[in-house]
């Protein structure tokens, strides 16, 4: 369900699946913009590790990268998160449709099998 029309969602969810990457997105969002150096100063990880994660998040479309002198400055892009939320809504409407189909399927099978719900006098036939 995450493939096809929802191509990018997989990458967004994969990016969000890791707690470390999530907290990086949070840290960037909280600061407005941030560089790997700034974030590494606050977090118990090396600058290289932060830079690698930031680049992966940018690839997933969650962060936008702009060059700032010798460093890359990142900022959060909400659009992929909107897509992710939209996907969740579509999961809900898929269930609405499935459950309606389940109801029809059950109703349709009543003639073929003995239903305990038939009136006791058998007048339903």
């Amino acid at each position, binding site marked *: *369900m*995450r*493939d*096809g*029309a929802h191509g990018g969602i*997989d990458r*967004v*969810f994969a990016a*969000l*699946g890791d707690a470390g990457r*999530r907290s990086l*997105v*949070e840290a*960037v*969002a*909280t*600061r*407005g*913009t941030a560089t790997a150096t700034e974030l590494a100063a606050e977090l118990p990880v090396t600058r290289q590790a932060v830079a690698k994660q930031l680049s992966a998040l940018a690839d997933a479309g*969650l962060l936008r990268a702009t060059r700032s002198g010798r460093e890359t400055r990142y*900022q*959060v*892009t*909400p659009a992929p*998160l*909107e897509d*992710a*939320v939209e996907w*969740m809504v579509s*999961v*809900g409407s898929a*269930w*609405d449709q*499935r*459950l309606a*189909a*389940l*109801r*029809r*399927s*059950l*109703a*349709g*099978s*009543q003639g073929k*099998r003995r*239903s*305990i*719900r038939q009136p006791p006098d058998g007048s339903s036939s």
Partner: protein
Amino acid sequence: MEIEREIVVPEEPDEVWESLTDPQRLEEWFASEVELDARPGGEGLFRWGDGDERRAVVRELEESERLVLDWDDGGSVAIELEPVVDGTRVHVVESAPEFAPAFELRALAWTALAAA
């Protein structure tokens, strides 16, 4: 964060259970092509008309009561049946570990943009 749905159908739980576990019955409402080994640890394969495909493993199975599938992408779906006066209540909860962070980060991202 979870997606939750509920309906009441007039059939008895054991009949609804068949619709949840018999691949042929599942093809009438859940997906267009279904393979399912309906026992704990059993594997399932679901295909939809638009080309989507999901694999699952049965995590929990209590006959006529509860079926929990773990999707291979990390999410899960739990379907519970409960006998009620006018039939059976079908309760569905689909969850994915990323649902909550996506919502939280979305709120945070918009707040950050508004402040920028």
